[in-house]
């Protein structure tokens, strides 16, 4: 109650004197070191004293760790510290036996990554076989994919998109950095081309989905 003024003055004061950038860099360093998961800039700012600018501190920190045994890496809109990939050979002890993904799961994952947001029907159309529930469940459970927005077509089917964990796992800064993405797009292989003449609705639905892809992707790429 009566502390309101006190808090206010505190906040006001810190507006003028955020910790020096060197201190902010130390703070970001400590926070990133503490967790295994990537931390968003927002979360960093929330945890740091008022007035701190995590984004700027990150620029300095990233530079500092260039070429070191551990690096500051960007994962989507989050940041993490990871060991340098060339030192992987030292870590045999740390290697966790990852569950072997079936060929179907790997293909499904790739289709989701490159075509996102994508519906189950579209995945099936691309692979030419039905997608087993287990495959999608496995990818969801690994938190490499998640549900995206529903497609605004009849039936309002759910879509799938890849997650930040996916980007983290494959060392990708953003989905834009997927290998070969540009080439595929240039070759028109990411287009949702309907089979000719088969379904009269297809054309309409397609326009919608094109829009959504645009939207969904910008969403993915922007943040």
């Amino acid at each position, binding site marked *: *109650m*009566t502390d309101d003024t006190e808090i206010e003055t505190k906040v006001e004061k810190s507006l003028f004197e955020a910790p020096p950038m060197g201190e902010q860099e130390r703070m970001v360093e400590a926070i990133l*070191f*503490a*967790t*295994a*998961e990537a931390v968003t800039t927002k979360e960093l700012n929330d*945890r740091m004293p008022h007035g701190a600018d995590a984004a700027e501190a990150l620029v300095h920190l990233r530079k500092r760790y260039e070429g070191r045994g551990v690096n500051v890496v960007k994962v989507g809109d989050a940041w*993490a*510290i*990871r*060991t*340098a*990939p060339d030192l*992987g050979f030292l*870590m045999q002890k*740390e*290697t*966790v036996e*990852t569950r072997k993904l079936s*060929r*179907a799961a*790997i*293909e499904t*994952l*790739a*289709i989701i*990554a*490159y075509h996102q947001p994508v519906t189950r029907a579209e995945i099936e159309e*691309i*692979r*030419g*076989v039905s997608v087993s529930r287990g495959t999608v469940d496995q990818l969801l459970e690994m938190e490499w994919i998640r549900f995206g927005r529903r497609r605004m077509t009849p039936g309002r089917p759910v879509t799938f998109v890849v997650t930040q964990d996916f980007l*983290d*796992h*494959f*060392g*990708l800064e953003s989905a834009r950095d*997927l*290998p*070969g*993405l540009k080439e*595929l797009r240039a*070759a028109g*292989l990411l287009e949702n*081309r309907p*089979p*000719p*003449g*088969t379904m009269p609705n297809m054309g309409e639905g397609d326009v919608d989905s094109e829009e959504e892809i645009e939207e969904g992707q910008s969403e993915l790429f922007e943040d």
Partner: protein
Amino acid sequence: MNDATSDNFDGSVADRLAAEALIVDVDGFEGPLDLLLTLSRTQKVDLRKISVLDLARQYLTFVEKAKALRIELAADYLVMAAWLAFLKSRLLLPPDPTEEGPSGEDLAAHLAFQLERLQAMRDVAAKLMARDQLGRDFFARGITQQVEQVRKVEYTATLLDLMQGYARIRTKDEFRPFVMDRDAVFTMEQALERMRGLIGFAGTWTAISSYMPEGWDADPVKWRSATASTFAASLELAKEGKVELRQSDTFAPIELRRRDGR
């Protein structure tokens, strides 16, 4: 895979051998599109230059073989076979201008697109899996530190709370809970009490207005309260089976009579 050139229209020996090799392994295919993609590799050309007609033939040969060997093919393989037979006839026959629908070339082009797209997805999937992976090639922090949630309760009280609290204690003997002043209210309890005493004499029908308390008619507010409570008390008595009520017409006076012996 055996050699098979793209121009062996009748299906050479090599082609047949290849088809048979595929049949043995039919369980290894993920559906007809996968099979078609594998067959297309025997053409040894860029997928964009693939001869869909050849491919259709290869596929149909494969299905024939499977039938001859009495290998049961899943329904979708047969559906694809039927579709490819249709496509083949479209591609071979001169186009019929009266016929509706997409041309054989359109259908073939789409099939080629599907194959190319599937192949592309497989290629990028392989590229993806070949990337450095977390927990295999690069690593996260081994000793993690969770953010502790510290919950702190801060109690507050104002000076006013304090003074009111003190005032409350020092004056508690004078204190009475806040109640509405009820000078102008004739409660239902009061009405009931009054009527219970009177109904003994109500052998004949009497208007309930005659049970109103004395001296309450001067003030309209008081009168209204007394009317309401007397009416409510009458209903209560009727419910208890002590009295009977009647009303000859809407808005006519409500009359009351003692209920005898029961």
